């Protein structure tokens, strides 16, 4: 039964000193879906993503990814992780960066395809430090998906990106989901929520609501996702 889920987060809590970043979060992500993790800055989205790929050890609760209890090094091969800021080697070229992340995942064959997907193949020789922010973000995405992971974790991939590129990114994401990849995309921009199959609303380290965009609208009692979210957040607080 757990095989239906790519990610199974069960009652996970994580504190940094006095600060409760995650407070008993439970959520399930189905295989092949685009799951949107929505919430304001500091809500715990990044901590949750890091807990899913085993970079954060939870104080309580369990995380199961692709049928394996985390942390598990074997599963990491099947996960792609795009960090919030484009974490790249600035003195290497686009291709060298992607080749490096391909090599440490044992997937050298996928470099060209990844570069073509993010439309950087023509710029593959450019040194990263000379690229614009948007191109770095695309290069970073290529590094995260070059080994064709089964689960792709994207931490605010569209922050600081112009609307055109954002549309492109969502095209990539949909294409990948169609090919069977599970995607978890975090964002604090509500208008991206409609592009996801299911959503998790997170605030103060808690999951406020979960469901399809239509479910969230119904739960929040508003046709506007942002208003629905605010309504749900207010209801929880009072």
């Amino acid at each position, binding site marked *: 039964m757990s095989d239906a889920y790519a990610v199974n987060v069960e009652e996970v809590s994580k504190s940094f000193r006095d600060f409760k970043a995650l407070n008993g979060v439970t959520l399930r992500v189905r295989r092949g879906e685009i799951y949107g993790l929505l919430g304001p800055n500091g809500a715990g989205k990044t901590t949750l993503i890091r807990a899913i790929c085993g*970079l954060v*050890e939870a104080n309580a609760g369990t995380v199961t990814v692709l049928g394996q209890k985390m942390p598990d*090094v074997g599963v990491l091969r099947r996960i792609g992780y795009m960090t919030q800021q484009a974490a790249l080697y600035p003195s290497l070229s686009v291709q060298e960066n992607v080749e490096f992340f391909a090599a440490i*995942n044992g997937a050298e064959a996928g470099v060209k395809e990844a570069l073509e997907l993010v439309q950087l193949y023509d710029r593959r020789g450019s040194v990263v430090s000379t690229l614009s922010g948007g191109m770095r973000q695309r290069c970073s995405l290529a590094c995260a998906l070059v080994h064709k992971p089964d689960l792709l974790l994207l931490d605010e991939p569209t922050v600081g990106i112009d609307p055109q590129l954002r549309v492109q990114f969502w095209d990539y994401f949909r294409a990948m989901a169609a090919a069977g990849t599970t995607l978890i995309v975090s964002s604090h921009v509500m208008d991206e929520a409609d592009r996801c199959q299911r959503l998790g609303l997170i605030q103060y380290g808690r999951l406020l609501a979960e469901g399809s965009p239509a479910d969230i609208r119904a739960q929040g009692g508003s046709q506007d996702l942002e208003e629905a979210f605010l309504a749900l957040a207010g209801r929880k607080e009072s």
Partner: protein
Amino acid sequence: MSARRVRAITRRLLEGFRRDRRTVALLFVAPIVILGLLGYLLRGSSNVPDVGIANQDAGPLGSIVAGSLNHSSKISTTDIDASDGDAKLKDGSLVAYIVFPSDFSQKAQSGQITPEIHLEGSQPGQDSPVLQALQQSLIEVASQVAGRSVSFQPNVHYLYGGPNFDTLDYFGAAFIGLVVFFLVFVITIVSFLNERSQGTLERLMASPLRRGEIVLGYMLGFTVLALIQSAEVLIFSLAVLRIHNEGNVLLIFGMEALMAIAAVNLGIFLSMFARSEFQAVQFIPLVIVPQVLLSGIIFPVSSEPTGLQWLSNVLPLTYAVNGMRDIMVKGADLTSPGLQLDAAVVAGVCVLLIVAGSATLRRRVA
């Protein structure tokens, strides 16, 4: 020019330091530590060189001078057999020995004072107290032999080094290793810190890479650079500076390589304790300078105050410097137990640092 704008910059600077307690601590603690260490090294020194005396004089003068040397504050003397002298220099129990030959008194009658001085010679700065003490004693004695003009003509023998060694020959051996150690350390610590600050380490941690693989990969990469640098330094030192070398060039290179590997791993290890490049560079006065002062490069370890000798003997750089000198000044090879110890200690430290480096690289960074 606006005073307010200038003040804004000054204030911003000081405010930044207020949040970086470690930098402030370093700014005020490091000078005290370094100067205090230097002061203790130079003034606290209670250890005078051990000098052997072999009196073979048939006449009375030898024992008079020997008696005077016994009271010298510059050296501490023991009576030895002249035939044991070289062995005692080699095993390090003596820094020098003085022989008064059988015709010492007789020659003094004719105005020639000719003691034999045998110096170990591999460490700079150890010879002068011996020569000074002897000279002082002879002046005392000469004043008792009134009315005669005497000339002081010691026969000086060196076990290692010698009159054709200049200062660079003594220091060069140690510096060849130190230059490589220092530069490789700085480059490693800063670039490993970059890996953290640019976020790529987080990515590596979320990949199937093992910690050991990261540390080993780093080590190999920097070692390749360090070896090329070592070769360059060595060729420059031997061919251009013409630093005296008694030993095997490949051995020197091997020792340099060991030091470079130690420096790489020290850099990786210490980068865990720095949050910025700024803080990383602060490890230089904290970690490198005291080691250099205590390693025997400038001040021989045997002349340090006893407490500092203990410290010197646990610092790896001491062994590295000693090893380099053993090879280049003494011409030691791998059969020498001294060099075996030096190489073993430096290699052991490398292994220790590799383990420590991988251990501090936590998969769960938080």
